[in-house]
């Protein structure tokens, strides 16, 4: 509800400015169609993710000996736990889709051009943040899928000469995937990335 309200305001002001400039810059004003909704839908999905994510924070314990059992608890025992986790999961999938569609729309319409370079640049960062959300969130259930996919992922920078191995160790918080890896992925997923999202989002609207 609050998200919708914020969106109403930001959309209005953002588009108003852009609209005026666009009309001045260009003889043909852009026609509004359904593809203009992609950005708003992405924002809506982000709100769904925040709500379901915070709900799960009440039950999830980010440690290698409790992560799996607390996810099991959320999935099977907690009332409404399964739909909440499912909404988090599916919103995340859809968010990647809609971020991509939104970017493509902006690209095809040439809407990243002067004077909106800044919107585009903050948008690219938001795209990166979304992917980082996906990568860190994937590890949190601490199941086989999570463990092995993340292992391959964190070792990928290793191929970079000189600093590569250190980068991998930095991601893992040690020389192997373990207790500290889960802790830092959790901290990044629920605190660092949301803060950066808010900062870049403020510059994006």
């Amino acid at each position, binding site marked *: 509800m609050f998200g919708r309200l914020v969106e109403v305001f930001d959309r209005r002001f953002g588009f108003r400015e852009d609209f005026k400039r666009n009309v001045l810059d260009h003889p043909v004003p852009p026609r509004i169609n359904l593809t203009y909704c992609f950005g708003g839908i992405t924002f809506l999905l982000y709100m769904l993710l925040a709500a379901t994510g915070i709900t799960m924070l009440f039950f999830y314990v980010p440690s290698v000996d409790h992560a799996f059992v607390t996810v099991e608890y959320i999935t099977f025992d907690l009332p409404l736990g399964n739909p909440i986790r499912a909404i988090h999961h599916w919103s995340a999938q859809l968010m990647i889709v809609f971020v991509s569609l939104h970017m493509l729309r902006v690209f095809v319409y040439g809407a990243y051009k002067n004077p909106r370079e800044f919107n585009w640049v903050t948008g690219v960062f938001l795209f990166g943040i979304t992917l980082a959300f996906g990568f860190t969130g994937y590890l949190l259930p601490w199941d086989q899928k999570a463990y092995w996919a993340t292992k*391959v992922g964190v070792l990928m920078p290793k191929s970079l000469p000189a600093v590569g191995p250190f980068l991998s160790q930095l991601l893992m918080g040690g020389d*192997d995937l373990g207790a*500290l890896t889960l802790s830092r992925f959790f901290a990044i997923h629920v605190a660092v990335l949301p803060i950066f999202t808010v900062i870049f989002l403020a510059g994006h609207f």
Partner: protein
Amino acid sequence: MEQDGKRVTRRKFLETGIGVITGAIAIGLGGTALTSIGAPAITNKREGKWVEAGSASEIADGQFHKVGIVYDAKDGWLEGKVKQLVYVKLNGEEVFALSATCTHLGCNVNFDEQTGNFKCPCHSGVYDATGKNVSGPPPRSLAKLEAKIEDGKLMINTAVKEA
């Protein structure tokens, strides 16, 4: 005129002061936080130790055996059981042990009895029976581990002997 000049100087001074103070606080805080967050990359190393991995009779046939070892280790704040996969084989008196961790991106390799090679399920890296990388993406041989037989028990040292 001079007063104006003075005022500007004073203003400049205050502005610089604000900048320096907030900057110092930000750098101090950020630096402390980042140092602490980054430190485990260097300090959180798993120590090698001798671990019992079953009885010696199990590997008496001179073939490669897949041994999952479980041992107490410290990993950050956690002191508890750690699991690791090792391939061991009896070479006469000597015990030959290889870490199953693929040197490419860390998957565990499988021993293929047909070819006598180790195969990685992830990107099809292949190692020969001595652990040498023979094809696919792996950049190095499998890590060798120290192993021995003591009182009829198979003992493995979790530290990498030779990478």
